[in-house]
């Protein structure tokens, strides 16, 4: 970072940049969540399944986020690990209406947490129990039980229910993430 950048940072003109990984099974709503977080003039109209990954950017009050929105389809999940080193935080999205694949989500989460690039780093984990508007959706508490989130001891984590289509619950999660990241930096 150049001197000017630092100066701009102190003055609060230029926001601090963080890289965040957005992971989760296919059709859980990752791209939709990221799309909602972007400024309304940059939002895409239709969301199609991501192939590979795409890089999106959005800003909160004090941070500038660069999100690696990864594809959740089974055959691309093994490509996630290429980007683990990058992430200063992880957003993990769960389809709370899909009880059947909750075990698959747990398995992917466990693999993620045991990966050497992640295991020994204290990075914040934000869970979105997405699609809470569905009638048979599980509550955030139920989801955290099914994923055994209470076993995560060495990393700060937070779960919140969300409805990405309407944008409900997203800001709450992102605010938590922002606080965590700022706390870690200072």
């Amino acid at each position, binding site marked *: *970072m150049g001197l000017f950048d630092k100066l701009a940072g102190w003055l609060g003109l230029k926001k601090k*940049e963080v*890289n965040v990984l957005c992971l989760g099974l296919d059709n859980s709503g990752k791209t939709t969540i990221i799309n909602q977080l972007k400024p309304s003039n940059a939002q895409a109209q239709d969301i199609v*399944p*991501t*192939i*590979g*990954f*795409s*890089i999106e*950017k959005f800003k909160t009050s004090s941070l500038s986020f*660069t999100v690696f*929105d990864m*594809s959740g389809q089974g055959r*691309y999940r093994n*490509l996630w690990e*290429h*980007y683990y*080193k*990058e992430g200063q935080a992880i957003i993990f999205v769960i389809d709370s209406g899909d009880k059947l694949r909750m075990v698959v989500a747990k398995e992917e989460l466990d693999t993620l947490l045991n990966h050497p690039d992640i295991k020994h780093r204290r990075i914040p984990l934000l869970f979105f129990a997405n699609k809470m508007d569905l009638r048979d959706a599980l509550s955030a508490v139920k989801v955290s039980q099914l994923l055994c989130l209470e076993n995560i001891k060495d990393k700060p984590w937070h779960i919140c229910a969300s409805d990405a289509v309407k944008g409900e619950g997203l800001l709450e999660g992102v605010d938590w993430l922002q606080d965590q990241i700022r706390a870690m930096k200072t």
Partner: protein
Amino acid sequence: MIKKFDKKDEESGSGSNPFQHLEKSAVLQEARIFNETPINPRRCLHILTKIIYLLNQGEHFGTTEATEAFFAMTRLFQSNDQTLRRMCYLTIKEMANISEDVIIVTSSLTKDMTGKEDVYRGPAIRALCRITDTTMLQAIERYMKQAIVDKVPSVSSSALVSSLHMVKMSFDVVKRWVNEAQEAASSDNIMVQYHALGLLYHLRKNDRLAVTKMLNKFTKSGLKSPFAYCMMIRIASKLLEETEGGHDSPLFDFIESCLRNKHEMVVYEAASAIVHMPNCTARELAPAVSVLQLFCSSPKAALRYAAVRTLNKVAMKHPSAVTACNLDLENLITDSNRSIATLAITTLLKTGSESSVDRLMKQISSFVSEISDEFKVVVVQAISALCQKYPRKHSVMMNFLSNMLRDDGGFEYKRAIVDCIISIIEENPESKETGLAHLCEFIEDCEHTVLATKILHLLGKEGPRTPTPSKYIRFIFNRVVLESEAVRAAAVSALAKFGAQNDDLLPSVLVLMQRCMMDSDDEVRDRATFYMNVLQQKQKALNAAYIFNGLSVSVLGLEKSLHQYTLEPSEKPFDMKTVPLATAPITEHKTEIAPVATSKLPEKLAPSRQDIYQEQLSAIPEFQGLGPLFKSSEPVQLTEAETEYVVRCIKHTFANHMIFQFDCTNTLNDQLLQKVLVQMEPSESYEVLHYVPAANLPYSQPGSCYSLVRLPEDDPTAVSCTFSCTMKYLVRDCDPNTGEPDDDGYDDEYVLEDLEVTVADHIQKVLKPNFAAAWDEVGDECEKEETFALATVRTLDEAVNNIVSFLGMQPCERSDKVPENKNSHVLFLAGVFRGGHDVLVRARLALADGVTIQVTVRSTDDNVVDVILASVG
């Protein structure tokens, strides 16, 4: 960036390439900065450049390291730097095939191609299409369709060109985009229209009707793009050629109308298309040629070059059509562009009349010293063609060539001239003396061993038969004194020929030989001693066998046989007849068409076709003990060209057997043939001994099966036979895509055309450089003579060709060329009959109401004489 490099170079003062000593591992190490945040676009750009440079230098990247670098590069999509992003596209395209999981960037690229930044969109489409395979293509199909009809020309063009690339891999998907491509074809942008037309054509090129419809549509509606017009002209002329459409076809009218287009490019393309059409008459040619004539005086060098190059081609087929342009062409001789000038000269040489030759030659000599060797060779080739056309002009040419020979020049150039002079000498007996004199003068100061030996060989062949052979002796003996070993040896051989032919020179030659026997080189001494002893015998037969007509066996075969003999020493002396004969060089016929072109043949002694067959056949256990391969015929087609199975046969003749090699190709992609063999039913007392089937014959992979036949022993005169052939095989149907065959199959057969064995299959061509000597050597013990009348043949040429091809023997002393305006001719043929008997045929032809032939046959074996006469009759 580039400016910056330049500056650095100036400072360091080193070589001009900043990437000269790049290390792959160092560059990959540097690529780690891609992972740093925030991204430094300038440094990343530099490293990507290095990676692409290495890839383009052919540096090999392992899959793991390439994948690692690739994934590191994907992070650069964070940056919004335009140059960096476009460099990423380039890297993606370069690494598409060497890295794994390149589809990881699919979403990023689709985002760019549909995004707002127009500079990203075209390159993103191209990169995306490189990493997409058939399965993924459907996922991006929607975007491609949109991009094809996009209003930004660069986007539309990229999409069209990328689609064209993908036609090869997934034709069916791309085919669904025809409507979009149609829309793009009516675009106002010239490039988009051209690319759309290209895609449409490639989607339809297998369907002639659709192509015709498309052409009709666009010729009516008209196009904006000159490129599209050029393409249409090419499609139309291809279609005309395929359908063999006449010149009244609307397609031809279209091409002709393009001659009046306002774009020079289109006009040239149309003219060139007309000129290259087969069976094009002078009337149709005239407008095209007049257009080209206009181009000849264009201020643009490219146009002048194109025009004169095309006219040069026309001149080969229709010299008269180009005559009209002679004036313009003559102006081009002084063109500052030497390529244009040379082409103009060679064109003029082709079209020029006999009277203008002198003038042209003078003009050439004025500028020949200014052009490069390659063009000089072109000029020499043109002269040599001219010599064949106007034999009477040989003295002018000869003078010119000898002047050129004296000038400085490289080996290729000198060789072209020497070859040209030799061909003139062979064509024109009158020019022989002057030609030989020029060549003698040339070898007095010749640094090229190959040319010197070649000329010495020619002197030995032709010199003794000139009126004053003694004058060449000095030149030849000078070589023995002055030159290198190879040239000295060749000179000794040439001297020997003079001694053998001219009795009055013999004593002097013997003295010279004596001198040569003191030479420091083994080969030269050996040759001198050998010739000395042969010459001292003063026997015509010995001279003929050992001096005039050398060994006629294949060198490789001889080497192999001798090696075999030394491995298994026996009491018997080595028998020369067990060595396969050398096949007469195939280039023989070609020399007459383009005498200089043959000079480009590789000088290395490549194994002949027959040596290859010998090797292949001896590898099959069933065919052992047949002796050496005597002759292999040219392949004979046993099926029509476009049938289910294509079969051709090569006849291999041995001393007492014949092997028929059937090369079969299965053109059905849904069948696997097994146990393929060709059953043969002979008409005479030939006996089929054995079949060797081809085990498997998958789609489009040629395979060979063989039949072994014993020739009748009791009747040596039964040389011709007809076999009716049937191919038998087991069919297993299989999936056209995977080639996976069904478990069980069924027997089937396929009737082939009859196969003929003729007398030519029993005779191998042998060139006797001195036929008269060979004729005396064989002697008249077994000589027979008979007279035939050929009523159906009208010219001597035709009769000569018939006899040569029927007997399959080698014409000697260039007697296969009948001089013009003669009504009698003597043809000399030489060959070796199966079993190693020399055969010589002398045929006297007389033309009167049909052709009368008196055939005299000499051979070392009685039967052979009978066989030949019986088969001629």
